[in-house]
């Protein structure tokens, strides 16, 4: 009887011990099997909780790297800066795999594409790609640097229109206004003053002409591209309407807010793109500089490593729509 009891009891004990030991062991083995391949596991958390981990990767030209991306909190995104690779969505708690192959050496920036938190823009990492061929050296430095523009200088408009200008041409547009270079290097306010001196048109018509010149330097496609980029990257602070009233704006201006603690200095309320007194005093080149370099001491992120030059100009083009009413079926001027 005792032997029978002992046999049953020992069986039960083995069963329980098997469960207590077997389950952790099975988990360990499962983990080991799935982590044997060469893929790199990257965990994504909001910037305040660490951002991407690891954030600095190494790769070689022509050798694919396999990434296993896991968001540990909210929905994030993943994209490589200045590249055409489509962004990936990283739903919370799910693993997303991707393979990247770089054909040129250089330092690439990867970043989050979803507004995941106040410091979303800080969710960035780098991939150092070594080997041959080397990265193409930037052919030209950004226009704002070539023009030696001080991005932080105040740029009040000398004049502002009484209403939102509507792009409208006149018969004899001063030829100097029609060049791409003029558009990039002058503020609308400068253009207004120069036109004022050259013509006898009323102020409103001059502003309409300035709007026409600005419209003539973009296309519907560029505006659509700029609008998309704005919605994805700028609207959270600057607002869909451009008034600086995005969902994150309040946190940036609240004294001693987590945003201010995060940035380590006083942040400022986001720029109001509908404010003519400031916007019309800025040239496209100045706006390019602000986007590429970001706003020192304001909380405005730098987008240089993220946007291509084409994207940056498309965004600049779109920003003018907060000042000017473009007529969509416009005739594009010869460039």
């Amino acid at each position, binding site marked *: 009887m005792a032997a029978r009891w002992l046999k049953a009891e020992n069986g039960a004990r083995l069963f329980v011990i098997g*469960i207590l030991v077997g389950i952790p062991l099975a988990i360990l083995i499962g983990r080991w099997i799935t982590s044997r391949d060469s893929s790199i596991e990257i965990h994504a958390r909001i910037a305040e909780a660490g951002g991407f981990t690891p954030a600095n990767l190494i790769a070689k030209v022509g050798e694919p790297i396999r990434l296993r991306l896991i968001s540990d909190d909210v929905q994030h995104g993943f994209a490589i800066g200045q590249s055409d690779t489509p962004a990936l969505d990283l739903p919370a708690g799910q693993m997303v795999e991707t393979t990247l192959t770089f054909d040129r050496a250089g330092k690439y920036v990867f970043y989050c594409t979803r507004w995941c938190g106040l410091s979303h823009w800080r969710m960035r990492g780098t991939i150092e790609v070594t080997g041959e061929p080397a990265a193409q050296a930037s052919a030209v430095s950004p226009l704002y640097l070539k023009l030696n523009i001080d991005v932080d200088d105040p740029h009040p408009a000398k004049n502002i229109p009484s209403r939102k200008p509507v792009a409208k041409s006149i018969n004899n547009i001063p030829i100097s206004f029609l060049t791409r270079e003029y558009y990039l290097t002058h503020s609308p306010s400068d253009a207004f003053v120069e036109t004022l001196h050259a013509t006898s048109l009323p102020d409103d018509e001059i502003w309409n002409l300035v709007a026409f010149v600005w419209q003539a330097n973009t296309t519907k496609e560029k505006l659509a591209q700029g609008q998309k980029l704005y919605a994805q990257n700028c609207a959270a602070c600057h607002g869909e309407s451009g008034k600086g009233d995005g969902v994150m704006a309040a946190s940036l201006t609240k004294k001693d807010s987590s945003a201010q603690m995060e940035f380590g200095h006083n942040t400022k309320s986001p720029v109001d793109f509908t404010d003519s007194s400031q916007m019309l005093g800025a040239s496209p080149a100045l706006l390019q500089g602000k986007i590429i370099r970001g706003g020192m001491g304001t909380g405005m992120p730098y987008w240089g490593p993220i946007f291509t030059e084409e994207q940056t100009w498309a965004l600049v083009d779109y920003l003018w729509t907060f000042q000017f009413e473009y007529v969509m079926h416009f005739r594009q001027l010869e460039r």
Partner: protein
Amino acid sequence: MTRYEITPLLQPLLKNRLPQFIIQAIALGGFVFAIIAGLVGTPVGNHNFSIVFVWIGWWALLMLIAVPLFGRAWCSVCPIPLAGEWMQHGALLKPGGKGFGLNLRWHNKFRNIWLQNISFALVALFSAVVLTQPNITSIVLIAFLFVAFAASLIFERRAFCRYLCPVGGFIGLYSQVAPIEVRVKDSAVCAAHTEKSCYIGNAEGYGCPWQVYPGGLSKNTYCGTCMECLRTCPHDNVAIQIRPLGDDLLKPHGRKLDEAFKAFIMLGSAMTYSAVMLGSWGQLKAAAYAVGTSAWALYAITFLVFIFGALPASFFIATSFNRKSFINFAYALIPLGLLAWIAFSLSFVFANASYLLPAISDPFGWGWNLFGTVNFKWTPFLTQVTPTLQVAALIIGLAWSSQVAIQIGEQIKARAQGVIAFCFVITLGMLWLLVG
């Protein structure tokens, strides 16, 4: 009242302790798995096995099926006391081993459920994070295991289950409603049986782990349905019976203040959880999550005052400031409390049940796909009928509680109108919180 004994059908299954042990051991496996998942898996709750299986899967089974229909059935297979009992008995199955432990008697002063009331309230204070953060869930589960194990080594029998377990407390309260009971067939047989093996134990089984003398058992509250008395009774005098719903509520003896307060705690918690987790008050939700902050402290104090102060005080007024009426009528709140919890649970169980499929394939959020279901998208089920079910549950709860209040009123010769009005207000409050 009519009762149907089902023991003959189940006796071979229940006397044999192997099926119960296997279920308990498998549940222990699930428990350990959930703890590990919570500690090392993804911190995203809806993709972590610990949150999904404990707070959606287990909770749904417990509150929608096990408690209303089978009372303390969960307690009979709960894995938490397994390790401690193993040490205490020196065996996992039949008696025969040499156990160890101090075997101290639980102090008379604490032979009530006040400690369970407090332990539930303590867990409830942190519920917003416990229910959403896998690592916190794991810590709570580990704490349960640790305290249960320690209690088994220090005290006799299942001291943790009987006096400390926060879950066991409310399961016991609501098991009075369940249509199933373990009772002796003939109390005269028990009276004549001097050995009292059901309480002392014998070679076939252990003395009641729940410290209840089965011969005197008249309510489900403290019967853990462990089936030891079925095994130890030499006269086959213990039966499992189907009975009318809520039968224990009308038994006038044994009504106590600690159990009365349990009813308020549970009712108040159902309302608070509904407000915090389902309501649209962002600040309240944020305060409940911000453990350790002054906002959370304010939330915690308000919650404690609500369940231990405001609700009982209102009920005291409703029962004409009479202590006897207060205690007796509190039992009328049990059906409404249970159905309020069912209504609350309905709001998220069906909506979130689809998380079970990805979580079983990828329990840690490591990119596994064990059963090919990892890509099953979140799909809320029965959303069209859930509000109707919730309203129906609350109305049934109100009607049932009102009926019980009237019957208790007749027993103690007191007016039940105030109690019915109290139940009506609570029902309106729950309706507003859940479907309003």
